[in-house]
């Protein structure tokens, strides 16, 4: 059956997406604010389409949700959603990064929503799998982030956004995106896009359309996809042992990204010089 679907381009290509040189990608590890960024961009670039969960997949397509045939037929330049770890074919990349402690907690709840784990699944056990990269097919959080940063940071065609900065000043960060894409972006257009992509509004849309969207259809409806839209949930939601494990695994990378750690780092497993050395000592 799969062979027939592949033959007619009716499969979802995922990583095997046919990439065009003028494609623009919104890339992040899962649960890092990709959907929010997608709505922000959709509302900035295509406000007349009234982006919501029923049409977001065709406005800013997801290669995991659309067929190869549809993806190939979309008007160009395409703005594409992706969770893929480094892919050299992506020429223009907006990379969204989020504190891995919040990412782990968010993915824990998302896996409950998808009934991949039960409600009583221990958070620590989930985080142990998370640091080994076993909770998603997109490599580990650190491999995904470091792979993109080490190859592309500081080069043209790469914009790094932090989810936390987007929350602190959404308009400012969206203006960076507009500038990166060379889009006309007056204050009015920017603030309209921010307003139409607010957590409250997206949450309302989800309530009405959850069964019509590929990522929420066939999942538990009592757990929302759009969760808190906040930074720092890990401080109350993650056990100390899980926090220590995450910080010990990715301490230097977290520091470089500006995420302060709370536990003493284990010098044996964390080489503080590795990433800063290639990226320069400071994040711009």
């Amino acid at each position, binding site marked *: 059956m799969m062979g027939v679907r*592949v*033959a007619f381009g009716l499969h979802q290509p995922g990583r095997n997406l046919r990439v065009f040189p003028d494609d623009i990608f919104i890339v992040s590890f899962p649960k890092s604010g990709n959907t929010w960024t997608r709505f922000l961009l959709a509302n900035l670039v295509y406000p007349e389409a009234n982006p919501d969960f029923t049409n977001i997949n065709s406005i800013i397509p997801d290669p995991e949700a659309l067929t190869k045939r549809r993806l190939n037929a979309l008007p160009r330049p395409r703005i594409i959603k992706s969770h893929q770890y480094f892919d050299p074919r992506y020429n223009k990349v907006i990379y969204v990064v989020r504190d891995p402690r919040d990412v782990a907690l968010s993915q824990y709840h998302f896996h409950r929503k998808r009934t991949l784990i039960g409600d009583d699944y221990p958070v620590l056990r989930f985080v142990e799998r998370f640091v080994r990269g076993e909770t998603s097919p997109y490599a580990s959080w650190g491999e995904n982030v470091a792979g993109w940063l080490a190859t592309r940071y500081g080069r043209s065609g790469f914009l790094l956004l932090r989810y936390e900065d987007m929350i602190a000043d959404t308009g400012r960060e969206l203006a960076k995106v507009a500038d990166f894409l060379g889009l006309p972006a007056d204050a009015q257009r920017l603030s309209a896009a921010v307003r139409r992509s607010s957590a409250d509004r997206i949450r309302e849309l989800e309530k009405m359309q959850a069964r019509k969207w590929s990522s929420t259809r066939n999942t538990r409806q009592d757990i929302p996809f759009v969760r808190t839209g906040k930074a720092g949930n890990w401080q109350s939601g993650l056990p100390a042992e899980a926090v220590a494990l995450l910080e010990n695994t990715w301490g230097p990378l977290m520091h470089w990204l500006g995420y302060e750690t709370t536990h003493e780092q284990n010098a044996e497993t964390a080489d503080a010089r590795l990433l800063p*050395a290639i990226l*320069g000592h400071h994040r711009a």
Partner: protein
Amino acid sequence: MIYGLKKIVKYTLGKDIAGRYLSVYPDDTFLVSYPRSGNTWTRFLVANLLHPDQPATFDNIESLVPDTEAQSNRTLKRVPRPRFIKSHEYFDHRYRRVIYIVRDPRDVALSYYDFDRKYGHIPDGYGLERFVDDFVNGRLTSVDWGTWGENVASWVYTRGQSKDFLLLRYEDMIADTGSQLARLAVFLGVDSSRERLENATERSSLQRMQRLEKVSEDKWVSTRNRRKDIPFVRTGRAGAWQAALPLPCIAAIEAAWRPIMIQLGYVLTVADGSGAAQNRTAVQKEGLISHPMQASST
């Protein structure tokens, strides 16, 4: 209209090239490098270490340490496990155990220039400066490798600290084959007796490999139907770029990959003007090569 038919037919007939579609097993060990970085030499060293009773040649190397870019998925599935597989792929998270070979990109460029002429990718008169511009920008190469810098950085910065990752520098392997081969043997978990190491070194020597290439070049998958006047096994030396690479080419390569070259211990010759290199050389002096890549971390 028929999008993937060619692929499906090839796959069904076992005529596909596995490449990035390779089915990976958790007990696989991969020999990864950018092309023209000493991968074939390392393949011979690994094969000769693992099979002291079966000296590696270009006739048996595809079964001893098969090539993901030359063999079909079906062929590779038949290889007895644990498999030792050659690859040029940029970071693939499914590869658990990785031996990564890195070589000075200035020498890689020169070697790649000859290789691309051997393969008919470029004509003989193709300008070296134009070629280096292609090299730096990732043209003339498979999308599965990325640029030199992308390939190296995508592996070293994701896996550099892992106990399942062994970084070898081609230059160190040439300068002191014995010590680097000993690291390789420990990583592979084979007996690292002096006799076994010397045997493997001898059977993988430049002279022997050059001789074997001549014997088998019409049969080996990577040399058959290619120009015979340019050898696959070239000089086996480090530093040829210093005499053979024009200054603008050196400058282009160093400008493209300055931080990672410094970190890997490749001394730069062209100032970048920003002063950033001077700040970063501190990293190099601390002997970074031996530190994160030692297979001793927990």
